[in-house]
């Protein structure tokens, strides 16, 4: 049951990333490039994605997930150093290459060498992250 749901979700995600054009780095960089030839496509993708998700969050109220367990609760503390610094680093990489984790996987089969190099270093970064997180917390003690 959980595996079928995961596969269905992954297939929808892959189809959506591909059809929306988000595997095309020029569309992502074009959206971020407000001083160049601005491309609004990403705003349509985000808006389209937020709609069904907002409905889904409403449907979680007073219910349980189909395959059991509980729905996730918001993380605490809400805003911390990790969130701000991590998101800034992510944004820099996102702007540089026009790729984020979802599209990087969705385009792996047709993205050639650039896609493979990006994905390999992204996975490397993910391996380094736990150590960096610990350093970040030590550098300035949590308030």
């Amino acid at each position, binding site marked *: 049951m959980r595996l079928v*749901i*995961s596969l*269905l*979700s*992954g297939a*929808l*995600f*892959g*189809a*959506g990333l*591909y059809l*929306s*054009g988000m595997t*095309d780095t020029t569309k992502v*960089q074009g959206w*971020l*490039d407000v001083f*160049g030839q601005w491309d609004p496509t990403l705003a349509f993708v985000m808006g*389209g*994605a937020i*709609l*069904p*998700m*907002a409905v*889904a*969050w409403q449907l979680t109220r007073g219910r349980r*997930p*189909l*395959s059991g367990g509980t*729905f996730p609760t918001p*993380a605490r503390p809400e*805003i911390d150093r*990790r*969130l701000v610094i*991590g*998101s*800034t*680093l*992510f*944004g*820099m*990489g*996102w*702007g*540089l*290459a026009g790729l*984020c*984790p979802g599209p990087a*996987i969705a385009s792996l*089969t*047709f993205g050639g060498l*650039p896609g493979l190099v990006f994905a390999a*270093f992204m996975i*490397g*970064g993910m391996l*380094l*992250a*736990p150590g*960096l997180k610990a350093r*970040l917390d030590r550098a300035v003690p949590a308030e």
Partner: protein
Amino acid sequence: MQIDWIMGLIGGLLIGSAGAVLLLGNGKIMGASGIIGGLVDGSARSEARERLVFLAGVLVMPLLLIPFAGTPDTNATSNLAVLAAAGLLVGTGTRIANGCTSGHGVCGISRLSLRGIVATVFYILAGGLTIVLFRHIFGVI
């Protein structure tokens, strides 16, 4: 151009539906960086199978659509140094922030999560600034 916006909206609706299926079905947040990262650093061993199945769907589905929707091109830079730096930044940043465009952006904003909104503001500002610096000032990308 307009057809790109319509395809963006259709693709976006599919992405949001994917998140809705995973949330209502398995009670999980569809965050690409979390799903990949948990597999990579071993922190999600008990869920490894369902995460691998999810990623298989993401990987294979575009291949099945190529005959109908045309040959895709990522138009990614061929500058390997830029790709390596970008990959490292995306990998470390999303794991430190505990989310990316799908987790914080799509799943967070739709629940009006302050974390999701703040993360999205920061990665968009950082991305925009990076484009200004490296495209318009240094001319690297």
